[in-house]
C-alpha cells in the first residue's frame, strides 16, 4: 500500500480521536475554568481601572483566550485516558502513537479555533476594536492555536495518571509565558533583557500579530512573527510526538 494512503488513513483516525476528545473532554469543568473564565478574570484584573484604550486591551484579551483555550485540556487528555483506563484500548488499535497525539492536538485545535474566532467576531461586531487586517488575524489565530495545542501535548507527556498533576505542571509553564509575552506591557516598553526573554515565548509572536492587526503597531515584522510561530509549531509537534512515544508505554 502506498505510504500516502497509509498516512491518510492515520490522519482520518487522528480525526476520529480528535472528535472523541471534543465529545468527552471539552465539556468538562477545567475547560470552562481554565479556558474561558480564567483569562476573562485575568483580563479584568489587569485592565479595569487603568484607563487603557480598547484597541490596546483587545489584542491582549484575544492572545490570552487563544493561549488558555488551546492549553486548557491538551495537557490533561493523556493523563485522563490513563486514569480512566482507556489508553491501553487505544494503544491496541491500528493507530500509531504519533496519530494518537495528532488526534489530541486536532481536538484542542478545533475547540480553541472555534472559541477564538467567536471572540474575534464579537470584537468586530460589537465594535470593541477595529480589526484592520482580519484575514491575517484569522490566519494567526489558526497557526497560534495549533502551536499552543502542540505545546499543551508536550506538557501532557509527563507519565502521570493524575490530570490535576498535569494541570499544575502546565500552569507553571503557562503563567510565566503570559507575563513575558507583551500582553500586559507592549514589547517596545520592556527593557532590552526582558525583550530578549520574550522571544522564547511563542505567545509573544501571536500578541505582536494581534497588535498589528488591531492597533496597527508591531514590534517585529509580521512575516517574522509568522515564521517564528510556524517554527515553534513544528518544534512542539515533533517534540510532543517523540516524548509521548517514549512515555506512553510507561503509563500502562
Amino acid at each position, binding site marked *: 500500500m502506498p505510504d500516502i494512503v497509509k498516512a491518510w*488513513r492515520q490522519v482520518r483516525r487522528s480525526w476520529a480521536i480528535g472528535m472523541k476528545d471534543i465529545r*468527552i473532554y471539552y465539556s468538562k469543568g477545567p475547560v470552562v475554568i481554565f479556558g474561558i473564565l480564567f483569562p476573562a478574570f485575568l483580563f479584568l484584573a489587569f485592565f479595569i481601572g487603568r484607563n487603557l484604550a480598547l484597541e490596546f486591551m483587545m489584542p491582549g484579551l484575544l492572545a490570552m483566550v487563544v493561549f488558555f483555550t488551546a492549553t486548557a485540556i491538551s495537557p490533561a487528555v493523556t493523563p485522563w485516558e490513563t486514569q*480512566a*483506563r482507556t489508553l*491501553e*484500548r487505544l494503544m*491496541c488499535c*491500528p493507530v500509531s502513537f504519533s496519530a494518537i497525539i495528532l488526534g489530541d492536538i486536532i481536538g484542542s485545535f478545533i475547540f480553541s479555533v472555534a472559541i477564538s474566532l467567536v471572540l474575534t467576531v464579537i470584537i468586530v461586531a460589537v465594535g470593541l476594536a477595529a480589526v484592520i487586517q482580519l484575514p491575517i488575524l484569522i490566519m494567526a489565530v489558526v497557526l497560534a492555536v495549533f502551536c499552543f495545542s502542540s505545546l499543551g501535548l508536550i506538557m501532557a507527556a509527563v507519565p502521570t495518571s493524575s490530570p490535576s498533576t498535569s494541570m499544575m505542571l502546565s500552569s507553571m509553564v503557562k503563567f510565566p509565558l503570559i507575563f513575558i509575552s507583551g500582553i500586559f506591557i507592549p514589547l517596545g516598553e520592556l527593557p532590552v533583557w526582558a525583550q530578549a526573554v520574550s522571544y522564547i515565548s511563542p505567545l509573544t509572536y501571536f500578541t505582536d500579530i494581534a497588535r498589528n492587526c488591531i492597533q496597527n503597531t508591531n514590534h517585529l515584522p509580521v512575516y517574522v512573527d509568522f515564521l517564528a510561530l510556524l517554527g515553534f509549531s513544528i518544534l512542539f509537534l515533533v517534540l510532543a510526538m517523540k516524548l509521548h512515544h517514549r512515555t506512553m508505554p510507561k503509563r500502562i
Partner: protein
Amino acid sequence: MNDKSNPSPAIEVHALNRRFGDVLAVDHVDFAVNRGEFFGFLGPNGAGKTTTVRMLTGVINPDGGTARLLGYRAGSLEAKQITGVVPETSNAYLDLSGWRNLMLMAELYGVSGREAHQRGSALLQELGLLERKDSLARGYSKGMKQRLILCMALISDPELLFLDEPTSGLDVQSARLIRELLQKLSAAGKTIFLTTHDMDEANQLCDRVAIINNGKIAAIDAPEKLRLLTSSMHSVEVSFSDAVSPDALEGIDGVTEVTKLGDKYRLYTASPGELVVSLVDYCSSHGLKIVSMSTLTPSLEDAYVALVSGGER
C-alpha cells in the same frame, strides 16, 4: 509479509523477553499458536501473562526476541489491524454511549459506516446490549461494560483475538454470554488467545494451554494431556465406618500423600486401580468397612498447581 499460499502460524513467538528494572518479567519464551486454535495462557499473578499479551498487542515493546501475528511483526499497524483486543485493565469511554464507543472503534479500525452499523447492531444484539445502546457506558454494570469491550474488540471482525481475563469478576450471565460467543467465534475459525485464571474456563474452551510461571513457559499442551502429566495426582477418596489414622493410610502400598477432607480421606497415588485393591485388603485385615469410595483423576487445576509450584511435569 503475510504469505497466504504458505500460511504461517497465527502467533509465532521466539525468545521474547522483557525486563522491568531488576525483574525479568518474561524470560525468553517460545511458543506458537496455530490458525483457528483456541489457546489458553495460564499462570499465577505476576507470572508474565499480561506482559506477554501487551508485547503481542503492541502496547509495550519487548527488550528482545521476536513475535509475529499472522506473519506480521507484533506491534506493527498491520498486525494491529487484524487483531481484536480485550485488555486486562481496559475500560470503555464512560462519557460516550455504548453505540458511540463501538462506532469510535470502527473508525479507528477503518471499518466502513454501513458495515460498522450492521456488525455493531448484530454484536450488541448477541451480547444483550442493543436496548441500552444509546445509554452512556457510565450507567452500565461491570458485566455490561465487559460485554461492550468485547463488542469493541470484534467490530472489525478480526482474524485474531486477544482476551486478557475477559470474564474475571463478572456475573454468571455475562460470563456465560461471553464464553458462548467465544465458542461461536472459535467454531467460525477465529484464532483466540485467552488469558485466564479460571481453570474450568480454560478446560472447557481451549484446544491447548500454556502455563507460564516466573516469566518462563512451564508447559504447553492440550488440557487433557496436561492433566495426565501429573500422574501422581490421581487419587482415591474414601470414608470408613470407624476412625483411621492418617499415618496408617500413608503406610499402604502406592500411597504418596494423604489429605483429610471432613469425614473422608483423599489418598494420592500413581496407580489408583492397585490402591483400591490394597485398600480393600487393608479394611479386611483391620475389620473396617468402606462407607464410600471413588477414584479421581487430576484436574487441570491440579496440573496447574503442580506445574507452578515446581512439581512433577
